[in-house]
């Protein structure tokens, strides 16, 4: 049975079912209780799961660090960091602790934790509340990185993230929290590392994730009017990456445009481009294009912010440059 839900509701539904199934799953973070989270994602959960949803002080280092300890001691924390931009405050806890314990201890410790955090711009929140930092996390062996673009993906990937025995960065997009879509009711799991073709096409592959999937879909619709049939592929998880699906799509279309909101230099688009160049150069009949944020912090003024965030128009222009 399907049910229409917002992306935020779908994340919540995913967490709720996991908490119900396994009492070792719990949530903590700033204002996640009564307040329901800064963006309302955990609304109501504290009433349904008293003692399993915990407000913390403003102590990100300890929120993540203690989640690592709790996970090592047998719990399955879902820790919320209010904005991905605040990850700088608790990065060691992720990259030197959570990510490495399993390996350093010779495979003996497990750190099954989910770090939920919203990313992205478009709300005039300026340079410290609008970033897309996913490439950082993909550069840390031991961490998985999930970035859902639809309500159904949000729910299914949450279940998989919670059940995974590794630290998982679960990055939501602020612009997507209110979008609606059909979501399977009850237990629903999307395995990590499986891309999804959001629109089939034959002329060009557009790889995009998170908010950019929606911009890519809008661009694809406009391109169709001009006779270009674009395929939109959403990897859904960056690590593990479904390289096979990407190569298969590029094999079909011969052209690749990668779209992400994060800064282009050092962005994950470079990794995907390199992967395709290494493993499928002969599949391409045109250069790979990337559409991404220029090399700048995110400006506050909507007049500027709207110019730096990749737009439908920029995606269309990039695609057309290949024909």
């Amino acid at each position, binding site marked *: 049975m399907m049910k229409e839900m917002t992306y935020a509701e779908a994340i919540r539904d995913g967490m709720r079912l996991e908490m119900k199934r396994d009492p070792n799953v719990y949530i903590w973070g700033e204002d996640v209780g009564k307040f329901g989270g800064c963006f309302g994602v955990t609304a109501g959960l504290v009433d349904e799961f008293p003692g399993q949803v915990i407000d913390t*002080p403003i102590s990100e280092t300890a929120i993540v660090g203690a989640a690592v300890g709790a996970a090592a001691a047998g719990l399955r924390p879902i820790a919320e960091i209010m904005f991905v931009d605040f990850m700088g405050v608790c990065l060691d806890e992720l990259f030197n602790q959570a990510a490495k314990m399993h390996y350093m201890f010779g495979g003996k410790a497990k750190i099954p934790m989910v770090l939920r955090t919203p990313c992205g711009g478009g709300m005039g929140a*300026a340079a*410290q509340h609008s970033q897309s930092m996913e490439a950082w996390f993909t550069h840390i062996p031991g961490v998985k990185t999930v970035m859902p673009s639809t309500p159904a993906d949000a729910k299914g990937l949450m279940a998989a993230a919670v059940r995974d025995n590794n630290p998982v960065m679960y990055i939501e997009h602020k612009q997507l929290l209110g979008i609606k879509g059909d979501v399977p009711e009850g237990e629903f799991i999307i395995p990590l590392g499986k891309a999804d073709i959001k629109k089939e096409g034959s002329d060009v592959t557009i790889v995009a994730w998170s908010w950019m999937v929606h911009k890519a879909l809008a661009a694809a619709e406009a391109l169709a009017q001009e006779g270009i049939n674009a395929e939109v592929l959403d990897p859904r998880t960056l690590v593990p990456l479904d390289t096979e699906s990407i190569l298969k799509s590029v094999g079909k279309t011969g052209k690749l445009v990668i779209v992400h909101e994060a800064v282009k230099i050092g962005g994950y688009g470079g990794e995907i481009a390199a992967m395709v160049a290494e493993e499928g150069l002969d599949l391409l009949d045109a250069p790979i294009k990337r559409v991404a944020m220029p090399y700048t912090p995110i400006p506050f003024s909507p007049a500027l912010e709207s110019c730096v965030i990749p737009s439908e128009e920029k995606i269309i222009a990039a695609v057309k440059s290949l024909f």
Partner: protein
Amino acid sequence: MELKKEKLLGFYETMMTIRAFESKAVELFADNQLPGFVHLYLGEEAVATGVCASLTNKDYITSTHRGHGHLIAKGGKVDLMMAELFGKATGYCKGKGGSMHIADVELGILGANGIVGAGQPISVGAAFACKYKKTDSVAVCFFGDAASNRGTFHEALNMATIWNLPVVFICENNLYGISNCQRDHMKVTDVADRASAYGIPGVVVDGNDVIAVYEAAAEAIERARRGDGPSLVECKTWRWRGHFEGDPGAYKDPEEQAAWLKKDPIPRFEQKLVELKYATKSELEEIKAKVEKQIDAAILFSQNSPYPNPEDALTDVYAE
């Protein structure tokens, strides 16, 4: 402490300017004229005013996400501030920063900050520079009750004390960090108690009494200036509004809110000024009218200012 009329009326003008600026920001935000997040200082005016009264342009402050009051009290220009809130090219940061990142480095304002607790070590660094260069300048760090739970707070205090730096930590205890009440986010009642862990003075003052704030801060700042090291001053106050505009603040106890509104720092101070014959009611009215006019002019200036050009988004990434 004997205070001159001029100084007291200066306090009054500063508090009224903050009040007028913030009250207008409420309306402008509700009218969709201000993008992004806006955290208001309504009800807390006495803190910034009382503290900054002992600072000069050579002294530094670090501010917070709730920074408008600090900036005004430190001499920030309301037209440039307002234009920044609007995201206009004429704003303090050319529209790149917004409410949470306003700075005026020439006035020693090292910026509002979007990262809670980030100002604490920055103030320590500024104080280190003051001492290193053998100036008699000081740094003042404003931060909230909930920000004293960040690791930065503890690292900053410890470093400031071992090096005996000229820095004063001003805790604005408005009893909340977003929805989280102080009694739920820390065990101690007074953040000032945390000073003893670092071997420095920690005092508590009524943050809604501008003279009490002034006196406590003046002493701490004087101490820092003479080279006697850091201290912590905790000002007990109350955030009138939700955490940011748009937050109805449903988690607050309405009775507590009503009780605090009665402790509004401005009428309390007005009453004192009039009773002690420092000013007549009409003198105060005049000041009020003057600052309201200033804020109206700032709004008009902002509304009439252009937005930045798209290519400006790519400049200022690196210094020349």
